[in-house]
């Protein structure tokens, strides 16, 4: 007793799909193989013809193929391509570099430990059941070992040897969804974009193909046929005839049509049947009829049958999602003062230029400069601060704050310049330079060598995540050099001489800035003994302020500023009796105003 077999018509199709790092369909292709498989070890099949419906869904041109003979255990194959637009199951991977907020961030900060959260989601929008899904996610070196959140379906494990997360053992019903969350972290030590690891998805669909090929196979195999006439035991020349088909193959055969003629009587039809009966192996089918014939009747029989077949369809899909590239944010900065050195005790306008270089691989949206305006320097007003990106001035999105807001000049101040929304003007691209310029005024700096101006720069993308930092100028601050200039001032009273009138005396005074720097708010006092009164002074603008004291008059003059080497001569006339007791004038210098 042989097996009960059907010829197999196997449609196996394979879809290969590649998604880019940002989940866009990069390429997709599908190939199919139609195989006529003879599963019998004993019986060949022959006269096989293949009829195909739905060839327009493939690269096949013909609807009919002559397969011919397929030996026992043999196969016949036909390959084709299938145009396809989308895979059955949608794969999407979101790599978020700032999981704290709801928006997806896409860059990492140089030299900062950055948490990364990968969400792999699968959806099946079709009405076909996807089976045996398996997802493999590579965890690149540098990301450490991942922490995997248990999925709602399937099993997941991390294989340290291959650095792969394997999620498998689940199906996805029509309309179904499945999600896997993986947490990891990286501290970038290079500015090249960092790959977050590829994702490989495989799954099967049975009973369905991408193409709509519909095969029909006609073929035959071994069948034994006989017509047995036997004269009736009750009446001569009457023949009881038996028409018999016997399936000698391993296949289920289908007997379709039978037509038998009596050759000895001018091809008279004696049986015309359409039994449409399936014959299992070693099963027979018979039909009995009688004919009248004086001699042994001779028959001719025509019949049609075929081996039965089974169509098997399956699709195997592979989706490769390329690794998401995470650009690295990194900026460097330089700060320059013009002039680089200023005089002590003087008021000197200066220009500050902060150059910020995008030396990373991320297009930046925001930059913040936390700068220092040291004590004894006047900070700029916001309208004086210019931000230039490339060759364009950044006109909007610039926020400027000074802490404390109304700090006096002798106090240390923090100037924060935040620039946001750069993406709207094309972004701060890698390789570009941003310049921030503003004026400050050295307002009588002290001769202490230098004033340090620490500077910190941060940068970010849109939407903002963990910001990039540049702190070298905070740790080694740029300095404004102070040129020491000697201060010296002298005042002296020249010889008092008699005036034009009797009892009058002319008192000449000379004040000289003999130092190397301007001096400001200079007060001069001279003393007039009691018994004398002030009569006049020269030049006329040099009217002294007069204060009466028990010892006499105190005359005072105020000079807003004396330049180096400047000498001022002035005099006053007093009148009185008694002895003029000479006292030397006094001088004092006030702070800058």
């Amino acid at each position, binding site marked *: 007793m042989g097996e009960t077999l059907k010829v197999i018509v196997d449609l196996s199709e394979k879809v290969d799909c590649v998604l880019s790092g940002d989940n866009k369909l990069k390429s997709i292709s599908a190939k199919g193989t139609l195989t006529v498989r003879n599963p019998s070890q004993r019986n060949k099949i022959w006269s096989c013809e293949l009829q195909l419906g739905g060839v327009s869904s493939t690269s096949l041109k013909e609807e009919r193929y002559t397969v011919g003979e397929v030996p026992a255990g043999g196969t016949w194959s036909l390959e084709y391509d299938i145009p396809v637009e989308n895979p059955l199951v949608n794969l999407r991977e979101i790599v978020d570099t700032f999981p704290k907020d709801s928006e997806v961030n896409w860059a990492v900060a140089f030299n900062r430990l950055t948490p990364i959260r990968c969400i792999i989601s699968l959806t099946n929008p079709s009405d076909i059941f996807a089976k045996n899904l398996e997802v493999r996610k590579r965890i690149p070196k540098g990301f450490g070992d991942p922490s995997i959140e248990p999925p709602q379906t399937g099993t997941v494990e991390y294989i340290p040897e291959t650095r792969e997360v394997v999620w498998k053992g689940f199906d996805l019903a029509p309309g179904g969804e499945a999600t896997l969350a993986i947490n990891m972290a990286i501290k970038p030590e290079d500015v090249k974009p960092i790959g977050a690891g590829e994702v490989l998805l495989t799954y099967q669909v049975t009973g369905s193909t991408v193409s709509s090929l519909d095969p029909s196979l006609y073929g035959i195999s071994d069948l034994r046929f006989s017509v047995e006439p036997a004269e009736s035991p009750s009446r001569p020349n009457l023949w009881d005839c038996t028409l018999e088909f016997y399936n000698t193959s391993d296949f289920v055969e289908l007997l379709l049509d039978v037509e038998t003629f009596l050759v000895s009587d001018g091809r008279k039809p004696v049986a015309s049947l359409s039994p449409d009966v399936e014959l299992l192996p070693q099963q027979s089918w018979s039909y009995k009829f009688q004919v009248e014939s004086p001699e042994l009747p001779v028959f001719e029989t025509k019949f049609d049958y075929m081996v039965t077949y089974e169509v098997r369809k399956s699709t195997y899909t592979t989706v490769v999602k390329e690794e998401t590239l995470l650009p690295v944010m990194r900026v460097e900065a330089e700060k320059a003062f013009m002039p680089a050195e200023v005089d002590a005790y*003087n*008021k*000197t*306008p200066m*220009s500050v230029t902060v150059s910020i270089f995008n030396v990373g691989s991320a297009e930046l949206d925001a930059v913040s400069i936390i700068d220092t305006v040291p004590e004894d320097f*006047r900070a*700029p*007003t916001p*309208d*004086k601060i210019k931000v230039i990106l490339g060759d364009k001035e950044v006109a909007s999105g610039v926020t400027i704050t000074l802490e404390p807001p109304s700090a006096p000049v002798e106090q240390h101040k923090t100037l924060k310049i935040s620039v946001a929304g750069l993406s709207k003007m094309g972004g701060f691209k890698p390789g570009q330079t941003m310049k921030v310029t503003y*004026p*400050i*005024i050295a307002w009588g700096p002290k001769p202490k060598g230098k004033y340090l101006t620490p500077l910190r720069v941060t940068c970010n993308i849109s939407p903002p995540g963990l910001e990039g930092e540049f702190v070298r100028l905070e740790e080694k601050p740029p300095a404004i050099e102070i040129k020491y200039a000697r201060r010296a001032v002298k005042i002296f009273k020249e010889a008092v001489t008699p005036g034009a009138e009797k009892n009058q005396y002319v008192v000449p005074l000379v004040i000289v800035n003999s130092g190397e720097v*301007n001096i*400001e708010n200079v007060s001069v006092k001279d003393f007039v003994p009691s018994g004398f009164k002030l009569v006049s002074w020269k*030049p*006329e*603008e*040099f009217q002294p302020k007069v204060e009466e004291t028990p010892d006499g008059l105190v005359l005072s003059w105020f*000079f*807003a*500023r004396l*330049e180096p080497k*400047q000498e*001022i001569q002035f005099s006053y006339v007093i009148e009185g009796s008694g002895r003029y007791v000479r006292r030397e004038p006094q001088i004092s210098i006030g702070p800058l105003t």
Partner: protein
Amino acid sequence: MPVLKFFGHAAFKFSSLKVSVLLDPGYLEGKPLVSESEKVSVICVTHNHPDHLGNAARIAAAQKAFVVGTGEVVEKLRREGAPEWLLRPLNPGESFVRPEVKITAVALNHGPLKNPSTISHFAFLVELEKVRLVHLGDAGTRGLLGHYEIDVLLIGVDETETFPPVQALQAVSDLKPKLVVPMHVRKEEELDYFEEHFSLMAPEAKYKRMEAGEEIMVEWVAGTEFTFKPLPRE
């Protein structure tokens, strides 16, 4: 109300309805900045350089305007044919006074400070309808100007002949004028630097960059607030 008109370089006219004071009507690129037909009462020339003295002799003769200046300036104008009766040499600190105007000569060295010219040089303080205007000429120092209250300061920004921008800013900061008008500008970048730092160096002062031919009206409103207003161009 006094009106200040700019002719270019260092040439200004400061005038009221009754008197007009022309300051430094020089030559620029060989051409006079001020027409001989310009109505003026007094001409002030800070020093004997062509870009400041210019055609002062002819204007004086045409307008019968007094000319005040240093002895060198007066001597030069005399040689150029200015009527003797109009020439008024001043000593440092002296004033030329008329009922409507007082003009005081302040001796200041010609700039620049690093390489000063030995030419005698005045700045002028013009007091007209309660407005005190100082024209610094090519001064490179400030001398005793700190003793004066100044409403309008006309200051050179030119490191080759007068104040470099830094020193001009320091002068503005110290002299504390109400309004500053730059002049004698040869390099735009110097003026850009001056303008960039101006409000930080002198936050209380107003600033006006005038174009040649432009006029502004200056006044003390209610005696307490100093204002200026551009006048429509002729």
